[in-house]
Every structure is written in structure tokens, then in C-alpha cells.
């Protein structure tokens, strides 16, 4: 039985990371991994904001990546990323692949999205930290 808070995190974070609904087996693995690595994040304003306003996850992730790389949000996302990577349904997203012009466009798009999210995320993170 996955605790409700972790179940909710698994749902939101899986959708954020791979744009798919979470599989119950993945949620169960996520709960075990969080317990093993003692990832609670209880009372953390950044995590609370992510759960309340899921649209902010990407910005806060990007802000933490630059400003607070060891933040519980980042750690939880890494744990779930590792679990998704070692699942056949998602493996191809993580494997090397050949590509043409479309791939170059996707690369440029990802880089631009990363920069935009980082700028907004840093601003958001500072506001949250000030309020806390």
C-alpha cells in the first residue's frame, strides 16, 4: 500500500517526466525508494507548491537545479527518473538514438525550454524562500 502523499507525488512527477500516467508498480517502487533514501520533504514549501500547483513543477525543478541541486524535489525526481529508466516501457527515452533534422530541432527546443524554465524557476524559488 503506497502512502497517499507518495502516490500523489508519483502521479504528478511521472506525468511531468514522461507525460504518461503512473503505473501502480512504478508508484510502489517509488515509495520503497523514497523510504530507502529517507526522502520525506515533509513541510518543505517547494514540494508543497509542486503538489498544490503541478504546473509549477517544471519551473521549480529548473530553479532548484541551478540554485539548490540537493533539494528534496530534485532527489525525488532523480529517484523516479532512475525507476522509469529501468522500465521497458520507458527505456527507449533514455537510450542513444540516431536522428536527422527533426532531432536537431528537438535538441534546440529542449535547450530553449531549459533556459526559459531556469529563468522563471529561479524567480519563483526566491519568492517561495522569502515567504517561508
Amino acid at each position, binding site marked *: 500500500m503506497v502512502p497517499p502523499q507518495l502516490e500523489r507525488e508519483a502521479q504528478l512527477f511521472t506525468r*511531468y*517526466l*514522461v507525460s504518461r500516467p503512473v503505473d501502480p508498480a512504478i508508484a510502489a*517502487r517509488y515509495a*520503497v*525508494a523514497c523510504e*530507502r*533514501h529517507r526522502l520525506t520533504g515533509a513541510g518543505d514549501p517547494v514540494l508543497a507548491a509542486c503538489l498544490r500547483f503541478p504546473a509549477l513543477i*517544471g519551473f521549480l*525543478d*529548473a530553479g532548484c*537545479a*541551478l540554485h539548490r*541541486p*540537493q533539494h528534496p524535489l*530534485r*532527489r525525488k*525526481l*532523480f*529517484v523516479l*527518473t*532512475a*525507476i522509469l*529508466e*529501468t*522500465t*521497458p516501457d520507458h*527505456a*527507449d*527515452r*533514455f*537510450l*542513444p*538514438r*540516431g*536522428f*536527422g533534422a527533426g*532531432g*536537431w530541432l*528537438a*535538441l534546440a527546443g*529542449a*535547450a530553449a*525550454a*531549459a533556459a526559459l*524554465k*531556469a529563468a522563471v*524557476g529561479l524567480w519563483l524559488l526566491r519568492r517561495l524562500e522569502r515567504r517561508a
Partner: protein
Amino acid sequence: MSGTAAPPDLDFLVVGSGPSGVHAARTLLDAGAKVRMIDVGVTRDERAPMPPDRSFLDLRRHDPDQYRYFLGEDFAGIPLGKLRAGSGLSTPRQFVTARVDELTPHDASPGAFSPVESLAAGGLGGAWGLGCFTLTPAELEQMGLPTDGIERGYQTVADRIGISATPDDGTPHFKRGIAGLQPGLDLDEPAEALLQAYARHRAALNRRGVHLGRTALALLSRDRDARRASAYHDMDFWSDHGGSAWRPARLLEELRRHPRFEYRDGQLALRFRGLAGAPVTLTCHNLRDGREEEHSARRLVLAAGALGTARIVLRSHGGEGRLPLLCNPYYYSLCLRPGLIGRELRDRRHSLGQLVLTHDPRRDGSRVTVASLLSYRSRLLFRLIQETPIAVPQARAILARLQSALTVAGIFHPDGPVNRVSGSLRGLSLVPDRHGPAGDRLHIDFSLTDGERAAVAASQRVVLGSLRRLGCWPVRTMDPGMGASIHYGGTLPYGADRGTEPGTGRLRGAAEVWLADGSPFRFVPAKGITLTLMAHADWVARQALGS
């Protein structure tokens, strides 16, 4: 205290079952000696899942249980937090460092030195990258080692373990003088492309003292006895199916079938005593019943690793004093190969070091810096995503597309000679600690002087500049901290008052004790020292037999 009466004909006690211990024992047995090996002997939990004998891509795409062996059933194989020594060990190999914190504790100034030690059967050799490097006469001389004896040891060890290598520009620098090698392993496409680029820039690079060659590996390219040639499954980081990779545990298994060999695991060696001409008595902590136990033999060979042996020697001298320490400064650099972006690469490959770049600033082989080059694929992308300071989905999207074009350069710098390093900045001593079974822990001081840092930075600039010239652009260089090279030595150096007798390998002040690991090395070269450790162990064993 419980006692174990020594059989009257027990010739040698060997402490440790790592690369040095097993080769010392093999040489002693071959000469007719009776040998008992003392070891903690941690083994892998047989219940823990291992990857099936299939290729990396096949497993990744089809095995629903892959997380069990890639991450561990409790997900302990997901390294979180700052990069540190040993965090690169794959889940199935993490047993190699199990119980170290509990049984052989250490402390160091925070962030100053983080050693990787092993109490496993087979020692750190269970996670060895299999790179085999011969050293130049100039390097051997600085280490205090006899060139003839070590070169004979290289051949002995190569005949035992099987080495695959291709003659090329690297031969004079790191794989000279060994006969009977297997043909080199096939390269992957990024390595082939790098060699082609090197051929174009060879003259200019050679003028700067830079050479590039294929790595010699203790990985078979042809079947040998019961061992199969590499299947190129790209799973070498995770498993040893087919026995193509040589590991000390393999030789330990052979030794255990020998009628004159006895393996005592569950024993943590604490200290020894013995006068000239009298048997040596080794006191151990028996991990099964928590009591002390004694073993006696005519002679003792210590091969517990430089740090493990230092603990035993310090305790045997009453816990007093301070010993020196050498360790390679080590960094790794993630390099991007723009020419390979978007290219579809072959699946058939091995995961180990493909090429070695050497920088010999003095052109005499005495202070060579080494970059070991391998492609990034089978270590899983999440480790790299973790090191990338952007949002996770974008990091994944970018890195997955760039993955074929990523090369990891592990850059090692030499350290020593021991008489030139600052004794005030580096050293080992024992301090009381009631939590450890020995009642002590190893205190380690280790930092580089400004001059040492400058020399490392200068050589690193040449190595990274040479890689750029080959179309391999360093995008991020990471410092996993001192100790991460996993090459330690110089604790009981050849020729030092409190060290090892040159020409014999015998510990000074202890007539019947020999040191077969890296403890006596007066210099730690940048090249991987595992082959030299094994050759040295063979040489020390021959000295101990002949004394």
C-alpha cells in the same frame, strides 16, 4: 582468546585475497609451500539478482525486472547527493565495499580524503576496470621496484590471467614487453573515430609528449580454457558472464582446490608478533564469534591493501606513529564529440576503457599523466542527468540525443615520490575508537600543496587540449575528491627507516614479514597499477621463498 594451532609444516600466512594476495599465494604454492590465506571474505549475497546473460539493449528493452539488478531491490543503487569516491560502483558490485565502514573505520577532514577499501573475497579486484598497464623503467625505479623482477612478474601474471592487446603507439608507454597476448578487442565506433583523428594529428601531438593507444585489458578476445571470449554485450560494468573478465575471485577459487592451500574467511587480521628465526603469530578478530584467534606460520605476507596493511603494521607497533600516504589526484571529464551527434552506433561493444591517452611532459616516462577513454552508455543516463543543472525532462531529452557522442575521460595524475610529499599535509595514524572491532580507526590527513596543484592543473590542461584537438570537447570536468582514484601506496616505502627493505620486500624491523601490496611503492604512477601490484606480489613471494 581462542587459539588455532599452526600445523608444523605451515609455511606462509597470506593476509588478503585481492589481486596481490591471490598472486602471491599462487607463486608460493607453485614453489611447493603450504599456505593459509586469512581474509574477511565478504561475498555477494547469492539471493541478490544478477543480470541475465543478454545484451544491455535487450535487457533494457525487454526485461521487466531489470530494476532489481540495475538499481537493487531496495534501490540502494541510486546514488544521491554529492559525487564521492566509490559512488560509481554498479549495484551488483557494491558488495566489494560492504562492511568496510563497520570493520575498518576511518576518518578524515570533511571532504579531504575518501578512500575506497574492500573486505570482499577478491578485494577491490571485484570491481577492477581490467586495464592492464606495464610501467616504464623510469616509473619502476621511482617506485623502488626492480625492473627485471617486475617485468618477469608481468609475464607470469599475463600468462595466468589472459590479456588482450593490440600493438600501436601506446605500446612503448603502457603495454611493452609481454609475450603471448590475445588479439586486441574490437573498438566501438567513437574509439575508432578518435584513433582516426589521432592519425591525422599524430606528429603534432607526439611533439608535445602525447600518445594514444588501445587499452590492454584482462578481458578475453578469444576463448581460453573454460573461459569464453567477450560476447560484446556491453554489460561488463554489471556482470562477468562467461568468465571473459579476469577477477581475483576466479584465482581464489582455483587456489581453494589446491591441497596445500587453506582459506580462512571471517577473520579480520589485527596485528602480528614474531622475532627473527621464530614463527610469526597473527592475531585476528573472528567475525563469527567475536573472539580473538591466533594463526602461526614460518612467514607472513601482508596483502591487505596499502591502508589495510598500514593498520596491521601500526597496531603491531603498539598503535604509535604516523605513516606517509600517496594517492593519484583524479578527475573525470565528460567530452562531447560533435561529429558523432545524431549517428546511430553499433550495439555490439564492450563497456570498458577503449583507449588510453598519455602525456609524458619530460619525455623520459617518469611523470606520465593518463586519460582513460570510454563511451557513455551502459552506466544508465540518470547518473548523468543528476549532474546536469537543468530541469530533468530537458536534461533527459538532450542527453539521450547526445549520448552516442559522449566520451568519458578519467584523468589520473602521478603522485610522489614519497620523500618529496609534505609529511605535515599527509599521513596515517591510528586513533582509539571503541566502536570498531579492533578498537581503533584510521585517521587520514591528505591535501596537496599549491605546487602539486599547479603541476596537476598544467598537465590537465595539456590532456584536455589534446582531446579538443582530436575533436573530443570537454564540456564538464568533475572532481570526485581525493581518494577516488582507488590507487594508494607509499605507506611503508622501500628504503625508509620505517618501511620496507629494498630488494627483498621484507618489512623493516620484522624479520619474517613481507609486504606484497602497494604499501612499499615510493611513487604511485598515473597508469592503473593493478597489473603492477600483481607482478610485485609475484616478485615479493619469490623473495620470501628464497630468503
